[in-house]
């Protein structure tokens, strides 16, 4: 079995209030996460108030390195098969994403991956953070 990655059209994310910086940084190729100014914990997806203590939050750059926590390959994709996944970042939080640029049948839990930004549909839309095997 072999399912080489083939890109699918990606609907651009809605840029909600409070997340503009995340998407601006994505355009610059940088993954960012939010940290709490009170308890110090980092979280994902980004909030303006910490989901652990309601403290104020600030942006931090993330290394973009992580490990596959779980994954699922959609046999019939949009139109190509794709591998949705949770990746646990080096900094701690686990985020939903896709595993790309590899044979999708070779993806494994625990695999080391690194962020790669993939373009979305539309003009001047931000790319989204996906991950490829190291």
């Amino acid at each position, binding site marked *: 079995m072999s399912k080489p990655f083939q890109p*699918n059209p*990606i*609907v*651009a*994310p*809605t*840029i*909600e209030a409070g*997340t503009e910086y995340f998407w601006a940084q994505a355009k610059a190729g940088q993954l960012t996460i939010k940290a709490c100014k009170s308890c110090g*914990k*980092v*979280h*994902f*997806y*980004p*909030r303006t108030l*910490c*989901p*652990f203590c309601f403290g104020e939050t600030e942006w931090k750059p993330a290394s973009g390195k992580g490990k596959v*926590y*779980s*994954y*699922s*390959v*959609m*046999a*019939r*994709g*949009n139109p190509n098969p*794709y591998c*949705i*996944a*949770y990746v*646990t970042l080096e900094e*701690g*939080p*686990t*985020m*939903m*994403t*896709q595993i790309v640029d590899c044979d999708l049948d070779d993806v494994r*839990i*625990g695999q080391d991956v690194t962020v790669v930004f993939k373009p*979305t549909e539309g003009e001047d839309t931000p790319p*989204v953070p*996906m991950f490829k095997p190291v």
Partner: protein
Amino acid sequence: MELRDKAYIVGAYEHPTRKAPDKSVAQLHAESAKGALEDAGLSHSDIDGYFCAGDAPGLGMLSMADYMGLRNLRHIDSTETGGSSYLIHVSHAAQAIAMGRCDIALITLAGRPRSAGSSGLQPRSWGSDVPDAPFESPFGSVTVNSYALVAQRHMYEYGTTAEQLAWIKVAASHHAQHNPHAMLKDVVTVEDVVNSPMVASPLKRLDCCVVSDGGGALILARPEIARQLKRPLVGIRGAGEAVKGQLGGEVDLTYSAARTSGPLAFAQAGVTPQDIKYASIYDSFTITVLMQLEDLGFCKKGEGGKFVSDGNLISGVGKLPFNTDGGGLCNNHPANRGGITKVIEAVRQLRGEAHPAVQVPNCDLALAHGTGGLLGSRHGSATLILERV
């Protein structure tokens, strides 16, 4: 609040349709409500409490109460937790009756996803102002792969196999063969399930529930009224509800919110999983059942695969007969959210009115459980422990 003997389920009705291209969703709600009232021996004007969830069209509660002409409502509740909503409604209705807020409560669910061509394969249109959607929708997050993420992790952590998951569908199919209304009436084998087409790895087509049109309704009544009716009484002995999400990024797919709702319900009921004679377990996918069996305490965490193997869920064969109507996996999953059918089959079992081939002998204590929303990201969970009175 103590629920025992404060209110009884006196009416239950599962709409017989599985495909209703010529009916509206509102009509299916009303037909289901009428069926439950007839089952109870009550009439339209008796209803003074009404419960519905996100499947109610238009303005939801407001639209349905208006459409059905419910003029005497004193208590309303549109708690929405996906497919688990209707089990929470049973608990909330019993509480409302116990508090004197209403005497006769109606709960309805209906939908026509089969006719509308809607299933768990399609992206949901969340619109804007949904905080999580921009961080999930671009990655092709749909219902089935949310549950598949849980299944994949379960296999990794505990060595659960596709064959073990398949036993859950096999058990449901053994029950569905006796249900003339079931969408899938053919008994299937483990080989049939594991050889069915892959949908979202590791889940195959037969790991998934059916997509059906239909509906269902329940009536609860105050004891003084319930005892004057013709139907056997079903009591609510314990109830628990919970939600679980991504925990700020501390994602842990090895357990569900049933780990909270289950113990709440068992503690209130004063019984243990070993006391349960029959269980309605939400079965949107085979993995949904496996997670709930473990989290509700029917087996240890990680041992669900072993528990379901060799037919332990098959009535007359195994130790925990489940979903004797064929469940969502084979019978019916109306509105893509089958919670109410879980209660309805538990009521049939407690009344002794399940199909004779699947009726559990002397069934006096049953559990019904719902898991709604997306198991891999955010979901609701509701557990009911029901007894024959």
